[in-house]
């Protein structure tokens, strides 16, 4: 500390606070602390699961995969995701368009509602759906008269998944919509394009990267949702189990390999999602919009 104060000449040279021995020591220590922390809290645990899964070879894993309960859970997860993600994407784009481009009564209330799923426990979300769509719920009688079972069945699980993953597309698309403005849309409209045509040819192409990123996040959340689905599904083995509730069920049944195997399948899907996120973030769009100013900044440091 005193070294820097007494030798201002050294301090004015570029990057001075870091090139000093003391600065380098601090930097190395910090790097070690951070890498150590990440190793012990992130990397090693994930590695351990892979290790434990294949500890006794492939055979127990294959046996776990061939169990009917696993396969039904696997397909259930895929089906829920295949419904929840497109529905949330369409409504997410619509909601983002309405919230950014339109003024209507109750707009700020809707805007606040969108963030709510991030602030609520998944368990609470599950409970709230049971209270509305369950047998004794607000809509229970109407639904049972119509012969529709929502809770303890797939519709409820889809609803729960849609609820928890609701904000992603909306929140990824809204800033992009604000950034692109309405000039191009107005131009298209002036040139006689219809509303739909303008949306498909002008708006959607401009927001597509926001949409894609939102879809990636929605997919990750849909595949991995546990709490909300656990409550609304009733976790009926072979019927309403998803991969995540299957992990818990196997664990409670002391079938660790079964739990690990299902976990690995989920983890591999998560790694794919992570890969997509990384590719997206380092992709051309990331450089063009997200990192635009960063380039300016690095030019300055070079100068």
């Amino acid at each position, binding site marked *: 500390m005193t070294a820097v104060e007494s030798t201002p000449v050294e301090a004015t040279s570029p990057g001075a606070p870091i090139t000093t021995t003391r600065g380098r020591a601090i930097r190395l220590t910090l790097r070690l602390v951070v890498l150590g922390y990440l190793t012990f*809290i992130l990397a*090693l*645990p994930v590695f351990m699961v892979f290790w434990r899964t294949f500890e006794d070879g492939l055979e127990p894993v294959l046996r776990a995969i061939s169990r009917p309960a696993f396969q039904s859970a696997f397909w259930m997860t895929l089906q829920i995701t295949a419904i929840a993600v497109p529905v949330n994407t369409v409504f997410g784009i619509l909601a983002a368009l309405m919230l950014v481009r339109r003024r209507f009564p109750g707009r700020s209330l809707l805007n606040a509602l969108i963030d709510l799923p991030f602030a609520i*426990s998944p*368990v609470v979300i599950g409970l709230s759906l049971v209270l509305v769509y369950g047998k004794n719920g607000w809509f229970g009688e109407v639904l049972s008269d119509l012969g529709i079972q929502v809770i303890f069945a797939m519709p409820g699980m889809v609803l729960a998944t849609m*609820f928890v993953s*609701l904000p992603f597309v909306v929140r990824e698309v809204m800033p992009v919509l604000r950034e692109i403005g309405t000039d191009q849309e107005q131009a298209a409209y002036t040139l006689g394009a219809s509303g739909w045509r303008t949306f498909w040819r002008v708006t959607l192409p401009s927001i597509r990267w926001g949409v894609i990123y939102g879809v990636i996040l929605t997919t990750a959340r849909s*595949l991995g949702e546990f709490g909300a689905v656990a409550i609304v599904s009733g976790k009926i083995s072979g019927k309403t189990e998803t991969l995540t509730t299957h992990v818990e069920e196997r664990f409670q049944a002391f079938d660790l390999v079964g739990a690990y195997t299902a976990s690995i399948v*989920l983890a591999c899907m998560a790694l794919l999602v*992570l890969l997509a996120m990384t590719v997206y973030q380092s992709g051309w769009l990331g450089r063009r919009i997200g990192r635009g100013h960063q380039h300016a900044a690095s030019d300055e440091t070079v100068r």
Partner: protein
Amino acid sequence: MSLGSGTAAAVRGPASTRYDGRGLLGPGITAAYLSLLVLIPISAILWRSVSDGLDEFWAAITSPQALAALQLTFTVSGIVTVINALIGTAIAWVLVRDDFAGKPFINALIDLPFALPTIVAGLTLLALYGPQSPFGINAAYSQVGIMLALLFITLPFVVRAVQPVLEELDREMEEAAASLGASSPTVLRRVVLPNLLPAILTGSALAFARCIGEFGSVILIAGNIPYRTEMASVYIYGQVEADKPGSASAVSVVLLVVSLAVLVVFDILRRRISRHEEASA
């Protein structure tokens, strides 16, 4: 994801909306969708929590087991949030300012907790810090185990909030301060941290909100021993399973109110600090 996202829209005046103009059809569908999915269910929780009377509500949230669960939840979440604020800022600093082989890989790794299902996160931690731990560390069925799980799943919040701000931060400001004779700690305290504080607060608030509602990652590692390692979300789950929706709703409302209050208070704090920074700049 941020709370202040409404402001930019407010500044921009009424935009041209003719191209999708079918009156209130669009807003109507949006409102219906959000109502069926979010508004009505949340209203049902609020209504159910008091539908047996306020006395029942009070009795539900002050039952010894519920109180213990709430107290544990808020304490553990608070500790985890503070740790996250510190280590998250350090991680962001290393990712932005440091340079070493494999940095892009580490950077990608940060998002893992967002991609990995929470139940898998819990199981992975149990594999390393459970009864079969290769290090001989058994944190299963303890409050330490709960904290590990929460630290895992909330890791990205502060890092990803601070990182872009640190990237934007003008190095010249720090160099100027250093050239004027400020020591490294002074530069850190007077120049860097004040600029990062709003982002740290935003990330911390999101992490805290996430912690108090967390379920999937703690259910396996916590052991869920009433009065000792039972988190509020697990308690609510138990009440639902025991067919006590009234008491489950009451505790849910407490979580909901605290979570929203924290998000709002942190947002106000963040705005105040940002404004102060702008004024003094």
